[in-house]
C-alpha cells in the first residue's frame, strides 16, 4: 500500500531517503526511518488498529505518546522474543518489524467478540461481581472458578504473554549524579543547560528516541531569534559537548523513591539489538540524584461524548505531532472540537499542510486570544458553544453531527475529528515523591504543591504552559538544583520567544447532555472500556471515594494508568456527587507510571544468579554415584543413593539397615559451624544456650539448645570445647540466622564480653561415619588419637590427622549408633571422603543420604528444629528439660520460660505415635484428634511432625506434638488422612535402643 497520507514534504523525525518495510497483521506496508509504528500506519491510511478491552469495539490511534490507550500491539522478533501490549506510538519502526493487533478473533476487521458491544447493557461496571454468583453445584465458587472466570479471561483482556523463556539480556545499574533532569523538552533542556554550566554532574533522561519534546514538532516558534528546531539542535550540541552531561534518550523515569532515588528504564533501539543480540535489551538504572528537576510535560485530554472512541477521532496535539514529526496527515477533511487554544495551533499547522479544515467548534462561550484570532485570520471558520451529538462511521469516522454558534445544528462530513479537552500536567513522579498536589481552580488542574524531597517541577508538568514561561522556569529550576547540590549557578538566562503565544482553556468531565443518558457510550477510559454511565453507576451504588470508583469501574488501570482518563473520571464523579473536585480527591500515583518489562526488573538475576546453588565438596562424587538430591535452603543435599532398579523407599530402607548393621557414610558438610573464641567464650555460650558450658572439659562436646528471648526453641547443635577459650559450635543448615542472633547479643546486650565469632561453615567438610563398625572403619586412616571407647568416649573432640590431613575428629551421633564426624578443610574433603568410602565398602557399608538420616534420627526421637518445632515450642515441650543448666542465673529465653503460658499444664508435648495398622504411614502435618469423627470446629489435640517407615522396627513410626502428650502414654488417638481418620497409640518419642547402649561402646 502506498503512503497516501504522507505529506509531500516535512517531518522533522523521518528520513525520506531511508524507506522501511514492515508488516501489521501480516500485511506489508512501507514507512521511513524515524517513524513510529503508529505514524507509519497512519501514513498508510490504517485507522483500525485494535479492539477494545470489553466491548471489542473498533479502535484507532488517539495519541502520539505513551498515553496511547488503543493502539496496543504485539511485536515478535523470534522465539521468546514476543512482547505484547506495546503502544504503537512508542514502537520505533525498523526494517522487517512484524506487529500484530490484539484482543480480536479471528481478525481485526471481523471480530466475534464484538457481540459484547450489543450485550453491553448486561456487562456494565462490576457486572462480574453481580452476575456470576452461582450455581455452586460442585462446591463453593465452583461456577465462578470453572465456568465464568476462564471464559471472561479469554474474552476480555490485553495481549498474550509469551510462553518461551526470554532469551534477551537485561541489566541493572546503580548510579549517582548531582542533578537529574527528567524530560528533555524545552523546560528540561533549559534546566540542563544552566545546571551543566555550573559544573554539576548532570543526567538528562527522556523516554523518546530523540530529545526535544514539543520543540521537535514546533515549526512556528522562534527562540533567541532562531527557529525552535535550530535552537534545539544547538542546545543539544552544547549539551553533548559538555563532559559533565549525560543525555539518555529512550530512558523513562518510572518511579520516584525515598531519598531521591529515581528508577530509570533505558531501552536499546531495536536495530542495535538486532545487530548485536548480546547487548542488554533494557537497563534498569537506580539513579541517586542530589537534586531532581521534573520536566515531564503535560498530556492532552480527550473530550467525552457519545461514540468518542471511533477510529479517526484523535487528540489535536497528536495530529500536530504526526504532521510535524512524521509528515503524516491524519485526515483530508477534518473538524476540530476543542475547549483549549492549543488545538488552534494544531489547526493552523494542518491547514497549512493542505488539509481541509471544515470547522473549529469551540466548547467555550467565546474563543478569544491570539491563537483563535490567528485561526480566523487564516480564514478558518470558528464556532463557539459547541456540543457534539453524534458520530457516524463505525470502523472510521465519516461525519459528525454537532451544534455550535453561529449555525446551530449541522452535519459535517469528515474523515478525522481532532479533539482537545485541555492539558493535564504529568505529576506522577512528583506525587510518587510524596509531594502533595494542589488543585488550581483557575487552570482546573492538579499541580505540584510543596516538595517533600529534593526536587522541583518546571514547565508544563508544573502547569506552566507557554513556551517562553517554560523555558524561563526550566532555566531557574536548573540553576536552583545546581545551587542546592553545591554548585555556583550562572545568572538567569533570557529566552526571548516569538510566534508561540500561550494557550489557555480546558474542560473537564462530560457535558450535561451526556451525563444521565444510560443509552450513550461516551468513553472516559478507552483502554478499560469505561463509559460515563459506568462511573455514574458506581457512584449510584454507593462508591463515593474515587479510589473505590476506580476499582469498581477499572478506570485508570492497565498500561496507560489513567493518563487520559483520570481527570475526566474524577470530574464526572465530582459532578454527580455535586462536590468540588479537590474534595473527591485523586487516586494514588504508583510506580511504574508507564509499563516496564519484567526483564528489566530481573536484570541478570535469573536462574542460578537469582537463586544460587550451594554445593558441598562431595557433591560431584554423589552426583556421579547417581544420588538423588533435595534442596535444603540453597544447598543441594544428597537425598538417597539408589542402586540399579531400586525405588526411593527401597534405597532408604537399605541405607538405614546397612548403617545400623555395619557402617554408613554421610556428607554433613552443610552443617553450619561457628568458631567461638576469646576470654569470655564460655560465659557467652552459657548466655546464648540453655546448657551449662563453664565446666565442660577441653576435649568434650555437649548438646546445645538455643532459644529466642521469647523462650521458644530456635536452634540446636553440638558445642565442642577445643581449648579453654575456643569452641567449635555446630548449628543447623540455617546457621546464618544463628550467627546473626549471636552477633546481635554480643554487640549490644553483652558488649562487655571479649569474644569473637567466625562462620566456618564453608571452611569445613564434615564426613559422618556412623554404625557399629565405624571405629574399625576409620582406624586405619586416623593418626594421633586413641579411638578406644574409654579413651575417646561419646561426645568428645580431638585434633587428629586423617589421611595425613589435619582434622577435628568428633565422636558424636545423630543416628543412635557409634559415630564419628571427621572435619577437614573443604579442599581436602573429597579426597578424604573417597579414602573413608573405600574403608566403608570393606566393612560392607554404604553412603546414605538425608532421607535415611531423618529416619534413623526419628527412630531415636532426636528432634529437627523446624520440623518438630515451629517457633512456639519450648524445651519442656520437647522433653529436653534435662539440657537446661538449672544453676545458671540467666540465659537468653530463661525468663520467658517462667511466663504462665510457657509453664502451664496441657501444652503440646512431643510424643511418639504408633498406628494400629503397622504398614500405614501417616502424613506429616496431619491433625491428631481424640475421636475418629470430631465435631466440626472442635480443636485438634495436635499434629504429626515426622512420619516414616522404620526399617529397624519393621513398621511405621511418627512423632507428634499433642496437648498434654506425656500424660497420654498408651492412649488411643485418631489421625486425619484424606480417607478418614486412622487410629494410633501414643508412645514414648524414642523407638529404638532407648537406653543408648549402642552409643556407648
Amino acid at each position, binding site marked *: 500500500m502506498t503512503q497516501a497520507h504522507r505529506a509531500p514534504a516535512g517531518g522533522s523525525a523521518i528520513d525520506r531517503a531511508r524507506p522501511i518495510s514492515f508488516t501489521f497483521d501480516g500485511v506489508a506496508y512501507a514507512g521511513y526511518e524515524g517513524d513510529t509504528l503508529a505514524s507509519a500506519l497512519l501514513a498508510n491510511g490504517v485507522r483500525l488498529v485494535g479492539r477494545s478491552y470489553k466491548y471489542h469495539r473498533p479502535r484507532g490511534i488517539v495519541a502520539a505518546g505513551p498515553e496511547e490507550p488503543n493502539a496496543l500491539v504485539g511485536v515478535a522478533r523470534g522465539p521468546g522474543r514476543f512482547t505484547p501490549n506495546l503502544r504503537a506510538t512508542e514502537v520505533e519502526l525498523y526494517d522487517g518489524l512484524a506487529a500484530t493487533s490484539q484482543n480480536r478473533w479471528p481478525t481485526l476487521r471481523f471480530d466475534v467478540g464484538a457481540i459484547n458491544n450489543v450485550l453491553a447493557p448486561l456487562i456494565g461496571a462490576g457486572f462480574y461481581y453481580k452476575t456470576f454468583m452461582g450455581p455452586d453445584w460442585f462446591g463453593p465458587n465452583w461456577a465462578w472458578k470453572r465456568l465464568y472466570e476462564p471464559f471472561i479471561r479469554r474474552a476480555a483482556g490485553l495481549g498474550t504473554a509469551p510462553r518461551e523463556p526470554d532469551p534477551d539480556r537485561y541489566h541493572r545499574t546503580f548510579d549517582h549524579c548531582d542533578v537529574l533532569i527528567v524530560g528533555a523538552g524545552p523546560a528540561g533542556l533549559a534546566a540542563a543547560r544552566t545546571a551543566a554550566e555550573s559544573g554539576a554532574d548532570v543526567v538528562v533522561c527522556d523516554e523518546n528516541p530523540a530529545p526535544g519534546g514539543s520543540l521537535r514538532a514546533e515549526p512556528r516558534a522562534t527562540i533567541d531569534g532562531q527557529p525552535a528546531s535550530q535552537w534545539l539542535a544547538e542546545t543539544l550540541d552544547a549539551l553533548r559537548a559538555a563532559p559533565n552531561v549525560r543525555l539518555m534518550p529512550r530512558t523513562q523515569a518510572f518511579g520516584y523513591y525515598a531519598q531521591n532515588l529515581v528508577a530509570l528504564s533505558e531501552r536499546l533501539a531495536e536495530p542495535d539489538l538486532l545487530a548485536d543480540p548480546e547487548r542488554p535489551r533494557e537497563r534498569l538504572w537506580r539513579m541517586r540524584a542530589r537534586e531532581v528537576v521534573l520536566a515531564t510535560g503535560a498530556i492532552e485530554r480527550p473530550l467525552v461524548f457519545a461514540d468518542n472512541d471511533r477510529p479517526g477521532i484523535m487528540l489535536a496535539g497528536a495530529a500536530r505531532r504526526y504532521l510535524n514529526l512524521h509528515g503524516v496527515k491524519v485526515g483530508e477533511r477534518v473538524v476540530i472540537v476543542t475547549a483549549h487554544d492549543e488545538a488552534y495551533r494544531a489547526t493552523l499547522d494542518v491547514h497549512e499542510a493542505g488539509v481541509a479544515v471544515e470547522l473549529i467548534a469551540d466548547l467555550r462561550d467565546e474563543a478569544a486570544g491570539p491563537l483563535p484570532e490567528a485561526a480566523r485570520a487564516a480564514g478558518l471558520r470558528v464556532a463557539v458553544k459547541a456540543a457534539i451529538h453524534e458520530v457516524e462511521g463505525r470502523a472510521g469516522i465519516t461525519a459528525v453531527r454537532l451544534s455550535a454558534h453561529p449555525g446551530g445544528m449541522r452535519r459535517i462530513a469528515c474523515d478525522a475529528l481532532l479533539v482537545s479537552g485541555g492539558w493535564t500536567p504529568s505529576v506522577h513522579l512528583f506525587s510518587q515523591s510524596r509531594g502533595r498536589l494542589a488543585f488550581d481552580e483557575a487552570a482546573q488542574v492538579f499541580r505540584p504543591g510543596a516538595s517533600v524531597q529534593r526536587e522541583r517541577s518546571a514547565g508544563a508538568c508544573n502547569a506552566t504552559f507557554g513556551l517562553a514561561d517554560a523555558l524561563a522556569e526550566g532555566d531557574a529550576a536548573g540553576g536552583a538544583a545546581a545551587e542546592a547540590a553545591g554548585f555556583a549557578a550562572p545568572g538567569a538566562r533570557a529566552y526571548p520567544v516569538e510566534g508561540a503565544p500561550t494557550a489557555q482553556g480546558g474542560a473537564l468531565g462530560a457535558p450535561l447532555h451526556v451525563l444521565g443518558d444510560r443509552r450513550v457510550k461516551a468513553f472516559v477510559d478507552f483502554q478499560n472500556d469505561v463509559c460515563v454511565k459506568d462511573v455514574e453507576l458506581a457512584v449510584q451504588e454507593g462508591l463515593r471515594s474515587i479510589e473505590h470508583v476506580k476499582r469498581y469501574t477499572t478506570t485508570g488501570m492497565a498500561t496507560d494508568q489513567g493518563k487520559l482518563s483520570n481527570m475526566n473520571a474524577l470530574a464526572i464523579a465530582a459532578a454527580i456527587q455535586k462536590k468540588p473536585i479537590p474534595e473527591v480527591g485523586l487516586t494514588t500515583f504508583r510506580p511504574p507510571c508507564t509499563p516496564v518489562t519484567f526483564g528489566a526488573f530481573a536484570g541478570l538475576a535469573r536462574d542460578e544468579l537469582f537463586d544460587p546453588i550451594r554445593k558441598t565438596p562431595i557433591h560431584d562424587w554423589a552426583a556421579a554415584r547417581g544420588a538423588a538430591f533435595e534442596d535444603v535452603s540453597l544447598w543441594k543435599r544428597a537425598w538417597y543413593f539408589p542402586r540399579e532398579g531400586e525405588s526411593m523407599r527401597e534405597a532408604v530402607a537399605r541405607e538405614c539397615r546397612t548403617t545400623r548393621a555395619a557402617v554408613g557414610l554421610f556428607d554433613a558438610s552443610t552443617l553450619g559451624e561457628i568458631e567461638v573464641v576469646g576470654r569470655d567464650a564460655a560465659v557467652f555460650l552459657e548466655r546464648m544456650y540453655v546448657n551449662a558450658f563453664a565446666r565442660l572439659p577441653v576435649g568434650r562436646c555437649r548438646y546445645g539448645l538455643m532459644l529466642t528471648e521469647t523462650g521458644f526453641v530456635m536452634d540446636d547443635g553440638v558445642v565442642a570445647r577445643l581449648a579453654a577459650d575456643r569452641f567449635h559450635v555446630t548449628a543447623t543448615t540455617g546457621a546464618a540466622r544463628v550467627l546473626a542472633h549471636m552477633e546481635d547479643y554480643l554487640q549490644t546486650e553483652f558488649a562487655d564480653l571479649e569474644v569473637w565469632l567466625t562462620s566456618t561453615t564453608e571452611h569445613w567438610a564434615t564426613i559422618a561415619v556412623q554404625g557399629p563398625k565405624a571405629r574399625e572403619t576409620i582406624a586405619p586412616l586416623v593418626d594421633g588419637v586413641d579411638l578406644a571407647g574409654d579413651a575417646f568416649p561419646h561426645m568428645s573432640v580431638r585434633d587428629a590427622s586423617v589421611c595425613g590431613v589435619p582434622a577435628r575428629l568428633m565422636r558424636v551421633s545423630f543416628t543412635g549408633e557409634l559415630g564419628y564426624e571427621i572435619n577437614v578443610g573443604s579442599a581436602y574433603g573429597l579426597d578424604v571422603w573417597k579414602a573413608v568410602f573405600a574403608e566403608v565398602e570393606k566393612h560392607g557399608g554404604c553412603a546414605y543420604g538425608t532421607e535415611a538420616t531423618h529416619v534413623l534420627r526419628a527412630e531415636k526421637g532426636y528432634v529437627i528444629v523446624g520440623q518438630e518445632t515451629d517457633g512456639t515450642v519450648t524445651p519442656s515441650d520437647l522433653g529436653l528439660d534435662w539440657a537446661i543448666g538449672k544453676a545458671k542465673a540467666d540465659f537468653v529465653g*530463661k*525468663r520467658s520460660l517462667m511466663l504462665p503460658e510457657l509453664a502451664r499444664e496441657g501444652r503440646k508435648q512431643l510424643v511418639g505415635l504408633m498406628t494400629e495398622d503397622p504398614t500405614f504411614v501417616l502424613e506429616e502435618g496431619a491433625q491428631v484428634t481424640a475421636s475418629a469423627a470430631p465435631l466440626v470446629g472442635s480443636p485438634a489435640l495436635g499434629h504429626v511432625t515426622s512420619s516414616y517407615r522404620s526399617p529397624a522396627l519393621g513398621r511405621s513410626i511418627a512423632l507428634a506434638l499433642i496437648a498434654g502428650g506425656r500424660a497420654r502414654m498408651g492412649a488411643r488417638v485418631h489421625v486425619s488422612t484424606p480417607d478418614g481418620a486412622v487410629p494410633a497409640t501414643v508412645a514414648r518419642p524414642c523407638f529404638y535402643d532407648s537406653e543408648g547402649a549402642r552409643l556407648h561402646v
Partner: protein
Amino acid sequence: MLLIPCPFCGVERPEIEFRHAGEAHVARPHDPSAVSDEAWTEYLYFRSNPKGVFAERWRHVSGCGRFFNVLRDTVSDRILASYKPGAPRPEIPAGVRS
C-alpha cells in the same frame, strides 16, 4: 531504597547492604528474673511504632557486620541521625526538616 549512613564505616550505603533489626533503645533488663511478667512481656512484644521520628536498629550485614542505631522519620523516610549502640539517642536540632 533508603540510603543509610553506617557510623562504623563512615559512609552512606544503599539499604540492600543492611538488615533492619527492630526498634532501638529497647534494653534487655539487667536481671530478667527480677522483672514482673507484665514488664517482661512488655519488653518482649511491645514496640512504639510511631508516626514520625523513630529510633531503629540496622545491621550493616553486607559491610562491617555491625549493629547500630538510626533516627528515621517514618513519614518522610528521611534519616536524621546514625550512631553507635550504647550512645544516647541524639536530640534533633530545632529547624531540621524531618
